C-alpha cells in the first residue's frame, strides 16, 4: 500500500531520569495516525514512563516530543492543548469517587470544552451505552466492579473526543474474568480507527489488534516491528529472552 503515512506522535532522543534512575535513555519513535501500537517490556524498562511523557504527566529532561504538530515544550499552553486531545486510561482507573459514572464522564467536557449540561449528559449516556454500561449512569465508582470502572474510565477519556488514546496497563489491576470486557471495548475503538498506544502484557490482544509492537528494556527501545514479526521472530536476544519468560 502506498497510502502516505501521517505521523501523529513523534518522539526524538527522549531522556528522562528520576533522581539517579535513568528511566529513558534516548528513545526515538513515531506513531502514524490510526495506528495501534503496543509497548511491551519487563517492569522498570521505561515503557510506562514513555507513555506518561506523551501527555506531559512526566516532563522530559532531553530530546523532543511532538503530538499532532504541537511540541511538548515548556509552554504550558502547548501542554494543555495536547492533553485535551490525548486521552489516557490508567492501570488503577482513577475514576473520581465522589461523582457518578455519568458525572465522571461529563466533568471534563463541561469544564474544558465548555459544553452545556444537557449536551454533555446526552453524550455521556451515549458513551456509557457504547462501553456496555447504559444501566450504570447513576452508579458511583464504589458500586462498580473493576472491569466496569475501567470501561467508565475509557468512556470518560473518549468524551473529550481525543485524537489519540494512551492505555497504561489497562487490565493489570483486573480479575481475570473482567479482562475480556475491557479488551473488547479497546478492540472496537481500534476498529473505528483510533490512534492507540497501549502498554500491556496481553499478548493475545496485541497479536489481534496491534499493528506494531515495541519492545523496551532498560530505558531503551530495543526492537520494533509488525506485531507478528516481533512476537514470532524476535531479532534481539533480550526480546527473545523476555518472550520466553512471558509466553510460556
Amino acid at each position, binding site marked *: 500500500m502506498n497510502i502516505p503515512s501521517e505521523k501523529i506522535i513523534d518522539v526524538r532522543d527522549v531522556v528522562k531520569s528520576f533522581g539517579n534512575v535513568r528511566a529513558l535513555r534516548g528513545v526515538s519513535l513515531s506513531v502514524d495516525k490510526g495506528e495501534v501500537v503496543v509497548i511491551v517490556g519487563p517492569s522498570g524498562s521505561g515503557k510506562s514512563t514513555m507513555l506518561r511523557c506523551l*501527555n506531559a*504527566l512526566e516532563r522530559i529532561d532531553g530530546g523532543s516530543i511532538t503530538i499532532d504538530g504541537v511540541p511538548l515544550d515548556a509552554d504550558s499552553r502547548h501542554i*494543555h492543548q495536547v*492533553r*485535551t486531545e*490525548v*486521552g*489516557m486510561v*490508567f492501570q*488503577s*482507573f*482513577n*475514576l*473520581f*469517587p*465522589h461523582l457518578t459514572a455519568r458525572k465522571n464522564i461529563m*466533568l*471534563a467536557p463541561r*469544564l*474544558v470544552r465548555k459544553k452545556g449540561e444537557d449536551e454533555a449528559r446526552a453524550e455521556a449516556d451515549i458513551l456509557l451505552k457504547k462501553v456496555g454500561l447504559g444501566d450504570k449512569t447513576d452508579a*458511583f*465508582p*464504589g*458500586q462498580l466492579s473493576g472491569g466496569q*470502572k475501567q470501561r467508565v*474510565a475509557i468512556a*470518560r*477519556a473518549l468524551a*473529550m473526543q481525543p485524537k489519540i488514546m494512551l492505555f497504561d496497563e489497562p487490565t493489570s489491576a483486573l480479575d481475570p474474568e473482567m479482562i475480556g470486557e475491557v479488551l473488547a471495548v479497546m478492540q472496537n475503538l481500534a476498529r473505528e480507527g483510533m490512534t492507540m498506544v497501549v502498554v500491556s502484557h496481553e499478548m493475545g490482544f496485541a497479536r489481534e489488534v496491534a499493528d506494531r509492537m515495541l519492545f523496551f528494556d532498560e530505558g531503551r527501545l530495543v526492537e520494533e516491528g509488525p506485531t507478528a514479526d516481533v512476537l514470532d521472530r524476535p531479532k534481539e536476544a533480550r526480546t527473545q529472552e523476555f518472550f520466553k519468560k512471558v509466553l510460556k
Partner: protein
Amino acid sequence: MLEFLAQQAQIFLDIFAYLIPALPTTVAITVTAYLLAVTLGLLVSLARLSNWKSLRWPAKAYVDVLRGVPLLVQIFFIYFGLGKVLHLGRFSAGVLAVGICYSAYLSEIFRSGISAIEKGQHEAALSLGMTRLQVLRYVILPQAARIIVPPAANEFIASLKDSSLVSIIGLRELTRAGREYYSQFFVDFQTWLAVGILYLILTLGLSRIVAWLEKRYRVHGYGVAH
C-alpha cells in the same frame, strides 16, 4: 427553702438577661474570624503544597510562628502593636487575631486532607485537560472535604471558646459581659456558671449541626474501594 430557690432563680434570670445581648458579638467574632481563617488557611496550605520552594518556606514559617505563640499574646500584639499603626478597632483587631491564629491550625488540616487524595486523581484530571485550579476545585477539594470537615469543625468550636480571650482588649462579648456583671453586683459563682452554660449551649448546638452535615454529605459506596 422555697424563698432561697426563688431568689436564686431571680438572680439567674437577671444574669441571663444581662449576658444574652452580648451573645451576638461572640457569634459574630467567631463566624467572621473563622471565615478569615478558612480563606487564609486554604491559601497557606496550597502554598505549603506548592512546587515552588519560595512559596513553601514562608508558609511553613507562618504556621510555625502562629502555632508557637499563645493566642492571648497575638491578641495583644495585634491590638496594641499593629492596631495602633493601622487604627484597628477592638472588633477588627479581635477578629484579625483569632482569624490569623486559626488559619495556621486550619492550614495544617487542609494540607493533610489534600495530600491524602491519591496522585492518580490529579493525573486523571490533568490528563483530561483540566487546569490546576479546576482539578483542585472539582476533583481534589470535594474529596478532601470528607477528611477535612470533622477536624475543621472542631477548630470552629475551639475558636468559639477562644473568642473569650478577646474580652481582654475590652470587646464586649460574652465573657466580657460576665466580668462586667460580676464587678457590678459581686455575684461570682452564678455569673460564671451562667457564662459557662451559654458557651456550652453554643458548642453543643454546633456539634449537633456538624454531625448532621457529616451524615448528609456521605457518598454511597465511597470510602470502600475505588
